[in-house]
């Protein structure tokens, strides 16, 4: 349980948001060219980091917009929030 600062609406309780999982997984440009291993990697394999992770969130019970969050999964502290299409403010 934590507070997320929606880049459009401001500070809201986490229960207003839907978690969208790991961020920056790029959909393959030419899916027909992919091997089974590459498909599995894209579809199923996840970093599942204990520590600082980049992820997508959706303000489901608010503005319904998607955005990115950099969060430490070991203590749920949020380091940064940035809009879709923007470069991460920290590495």
């Amino acid at each position, binding site marked *: *349980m934590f507070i997320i600062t929606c880049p459009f609406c401001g500070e809201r309780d986490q229960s207003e948001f839907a978690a969208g999982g790991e961020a920056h997984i790029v959909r393959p440009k030419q899916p027909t060219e992919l091997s*089974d291993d590459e498909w*599995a990697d894209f579809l*199923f394999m*996840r970093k599942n980091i*204990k520590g600082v992770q980049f992820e997508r969130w959706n303000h489901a019970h608010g503005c319904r917009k998607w955005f990115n969050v950099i969060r430490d*999964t070991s203590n749920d502290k949020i380091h940064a929030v940035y809009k879709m299409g923007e470069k991460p403010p920290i590495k």
Partner: protein
Amino acid sequence: MKNNYSIFSLIKNSLTYHENWQQAWRDPEPKKEYDAVIIGGGGHGLATAFYLAKKHNMKNIAVVEKGWIGGGNTGRNTTIIRSNYLWDASAGLYDHALKLWENLSQEINYNVMFSQRGVMNLAHNLQDVRDLKRRTHANRLNGIDAVWLSTEEVKNFCPIINTSPDIRYPVLGGTLQRRAGTARHDAVAWGYARGADSMGVDIIQNCEVKAIKRSGDAVEGLETTKGFIKTKKIGVVAAGHSSVIANMAGIRLPLESKPLQALVSEPVKPIINTVVMSNAVHAYVSQSDKGELVIGAGTDAYVSYTQRGSHDVVEGTLKAILELYPIFSRMKMLRQWGGIVDICPDASPIVSKTSIKGLYFNCGWGTGGFKATPGSGDLFAHTIANDEPHVLNAAFNINRFVSGDLVDEHGAAAVAH
């Protein structure tokens, strides 16, 4: 050699005020080299070590645990045991475990308080009714006991359930597996630890793995907080932290780790005679032998390793509990906690070899690993000892995510999470 636990040892030790019981397991320093090392001293890891020593005669092995044994999900679950899974592969796996449970206290000479009080799954809408009836048929075809109960039969079996048609999600029936039930979770870890230790297995607590050493495509050993341990076989049974170990070894897993919560009430006299699970409204409840109501909530939707979980998840579960059991409305909850569960995309586990020689993973049990503890240990031990899976865990290999041959139990098996 361990002294046997029996009525006679109990009487004998009562004469000395129970001050001279033999230590249940040793506290050894790690040796330089083992034939195999298990990472993770929970129920599954200790069971793996136990069956490696007992059935495969591998006695020069160790279990390394970063905390204390049974301090992770083994001591954090709601102790439900059942095998009423939909698909054939799952039915084989979980019923193998259930059969081992039935004789486990004798096998490990430790009372795990296995109680076959039955598990009832409720249906609250027409789709639930269809799904649960289908699962009942599938179970019976696989030789697993299952019956469909009408609303009246549900009420007869567990009278405190509110079966009024007026509630938000009325009870339209349910399924019952009578052989299912509960066990004392700590005793499972302690019993397996004691059994493995008595056969020579080193159980090394407070020993965190820092790195997995490889030479080419084979494992060489592991770096720990208690120094380097050389070994050719590593079995990873790290539950929520499986991805952390996988990162050390340089392989990718299809897992997401999320907090799953449970809570217990103040103890009361016996009031609920079975385990009742309800997928649709997401509430499940049983009563421990101490008298506490043991209530399971859901997982949080996001990845987290915090072992806490969100308040709104507990709130949602308790709302459902109160509607189904109005008699609990003035119960006080005593404790709440979270465990980190590693969930696969198909809600089935991975008990498998990997692309690295000598590295084996037993993970992805998600929200329902406790019930499988003996079977998981037995089959994983077989996989490690023979470098080949047993026929019962062959379907639970890591390559199913590449081949597409998933064992999709999400929702199918009344998995309440």
